[in-house]
């Protein structure tokens, strides 16, 4: 049995709605008493919500797990419970190993203190000992890139510099288990890359990491396994590529105007199914290679087609047309046929896509099918680390600085 470092069973956390926002004042309480003296002594009738419910998970030593989900799906709450910032309402968990939590960078920074002083303070708050900080002092300062200002009060730092220093401290934590909330989205691009690299280094050194992010490319890079939270529950969990594909599909399906899945008379011919060549049946819609790929669309022809016309289109998750193509003069006898497409590569950024295939005769639609399921491209992303700079294409490239004297 491999070693399990986190074992949680049935974790749930109930909040009163608005509890986090509202300050209670004595006046509120008094008003309540005066307004309805009897009600005050009854159990509160406030609306309760489960920020997290019935979450069970096991994490093995050295695993790097990505946690995804919409805002308010309970990701941060889960981290807070596992790191003991707050207690669960139900369930229990056992954690073995030292745990450090990174819910935000710069926790405990004080503007009046110098960069050096803040390093010590922030390090101590994050759980480092004084000796540990002293030992890593030079590395941390070098990593942050604020050497020149290390004895300047933090209030004179730019936001970016503060973030750098903060992350530099955080990046040098060495716990057995690291719980990281969405914190890698700070700083400039260069620094983000540095951070991501550092995270990879940390995850490579056998530490267990739970990693919340909205940036799917970060999850792809760092995590083998993904936990998808939805409404406070674990909706899916499994290998990164599969879960992310489905997740991105779900995110975009909300925006897509699907219309009819299939149009046409479907009396002479109909599309039956589609699959990527060389895949298992349960993942026949997953494209995992950047190399050559063959995709087969099966069409059942019921009556002979003499002057057929076949069209194909590929849409992305936002229903943008990626590619379209057509073939005229298609003759088909009544039988089961396969339309086989071979592409040298489909260089599209990872995510959900949908094929649309159609068959016409004499200007009449025999069948037009929005292929189900979606095609999930789960290849390695060769993209900008920030999602907003990701393009449509996924192009592996080599970069070097050439020339220049």
């Amino acid at each position, binding site marked *: *049995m491999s070693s399990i470092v986190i074992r949680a069973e049935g974790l749930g956390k109930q909040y009163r709605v608005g*509890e986090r926002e509202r300050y209670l004042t004595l006046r509120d309480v008094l008003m309540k008493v005066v307004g309805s003296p009897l009600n005050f002594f009854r159990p509160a009738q406030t609306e309760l919500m489960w920020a997290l419910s019935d979450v069970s998970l096991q994490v093995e030593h050295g695993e790097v797990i990505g946690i995804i989900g919409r805002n308010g799906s309970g990701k941060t709450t889960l981290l807070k419970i596992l790191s003991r*910032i707050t*207690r669960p309402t139900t369930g*229990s968990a*056992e954690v073995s190993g030292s*745990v450090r*939590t990174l819910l935000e960078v710069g926790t*405990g920074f004080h503007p009046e203190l110098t960069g050096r002083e803040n390093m010590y303070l922030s390090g101590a*708050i994050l759980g480092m000992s004084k000796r540990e900080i002293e030992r890593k002092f030079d590395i941390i300062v070098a990593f942050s890139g604020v050497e020149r200002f290390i004895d300047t009060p933090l209030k004179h730092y730019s936001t970016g510099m503060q973030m750098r220093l903060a992350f530099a401290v955080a990046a040098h934590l060495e716990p057995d288990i690291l719980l990281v909330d969405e914190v890698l989205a700070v700083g400039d691009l260069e620094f983000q890359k540095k951070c991501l690299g550092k995270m990879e280094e940390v995850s490579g050194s056998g530490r267990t990491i739970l990693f919340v992010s909205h940036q799917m490319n970060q999850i792809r890079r760092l995590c083998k396994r993904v936990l998808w939270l939805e409404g406070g529950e674990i909706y899916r969990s499994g290998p990164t590529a599969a879960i992310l594909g489905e997740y991105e599909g779900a995110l975009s399906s909300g925006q897509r105007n699907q219309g009819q899945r299939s149009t046409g008379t479907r009396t002479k011919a109909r599309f039956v199914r589609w699959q990527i060549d060389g895949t298992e049946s349960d993942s026949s819609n997953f494209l995992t290679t950047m190399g050559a790929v063959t995709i087969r669309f099966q069409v059942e022809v019921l009556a002979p087609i003499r002057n057929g016309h076949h069209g194909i289109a590929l849409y992305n998750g936002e229903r943008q047309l990626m590619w379209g193509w057509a073939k005229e003069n298609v003759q088909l006898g009544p039988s089961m046929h396969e339309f086989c497409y071979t592409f040298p590569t489909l260089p599209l950024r990872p995510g959900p896509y949908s094929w649309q295939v159609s068959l016409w005769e004499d200007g009449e639609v025999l069948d037009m099918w929005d292929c189900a399921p979606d095609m999930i491209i789960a290849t390695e992303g060769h993209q900008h680390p920030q999602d907003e700079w990701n393009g449509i294409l996924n192009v592996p490239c080599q970069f070097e600085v050439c020339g220049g004297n």
Partner: protein
Amino acid sequence: MTQGSENTPQVATVDSSPSVGGALPASALSLQKPFYRIAPPQGFLDLNLREVWNYKGLLYFLVWRDIKIRYKQTAIGAAWAIIQPFMTMVIFSLFFGKFARMPSEGLPYPIFFYTALLPWTYFSGALQNATNTIVENQRVVTKVFFPRVILPLSAVLSGLLDLGISFLMFIVLMFYYRIHFAWTILLLPGFLLLAVVTALGVGLWLSALNAIYRDVRYVMPFLVQLWMFASPVAYPSSLVPERWRWLFGLNPMTGVIEGFRWALTGHGKPHGGLLLASVGIVAVIFCAGLVYFQRMETTIADVV
């Protein structure tokens, strides 16, 4: 781990004892590794003093931070720790000593007053800092785990530096009035401890309450002022009628102040019963505060 917790599946503990593995496979736990169990809050009291001890480094840095930032961007810095009590002493000596001719246990009024002002200034400052500490460190509290009791503890401890500085002023005063320290000064650490525990005990209550009801912050100035007049700061406790003396002793600061005065000058030996009452009441406040704080601790990050 709390005793007996292996039998009850949902122990109200977050504990860090390394060995009691419960459901975890033995292989999962190297015995040196910290281990903890997370469960809903339950039970009356499960203080984890070992955990607090583990975080002594953080306590050190929080005290250090408080001291560092206290006089940042002031022109004369820590001199304020002398000037403030000195000015207060001058004013009180003028009004209470000169004009009102308050009895002062046979001591010069400034000495009489300053011996009380030392613990009182410390106490009121420490109490106010402790009360605000959780709210002021809200971001940290909601983002990082550590035993929350460290916050009021650090607030109470960091005030000791100012006390030390203003004590230097007191030595000057003693020279000025040519008064010698008596043997009773050996008792000073005891009374100092009583002052610290009093501030911490009340601070535990108020900091947790303040996290939920921000009103506490506004009540504090009145509370401190009222408390000062209910304590023998500007007047000797002999002014209080004999049969009410025990009630007076229920104010723990009475014991602290009388004790300080006695320890520093050898004058005005406090009534034994009064001292006992102060110590007793402090013990009660402190223990109850610890229990209350620990109960609040489980939800503080949710409500602060």
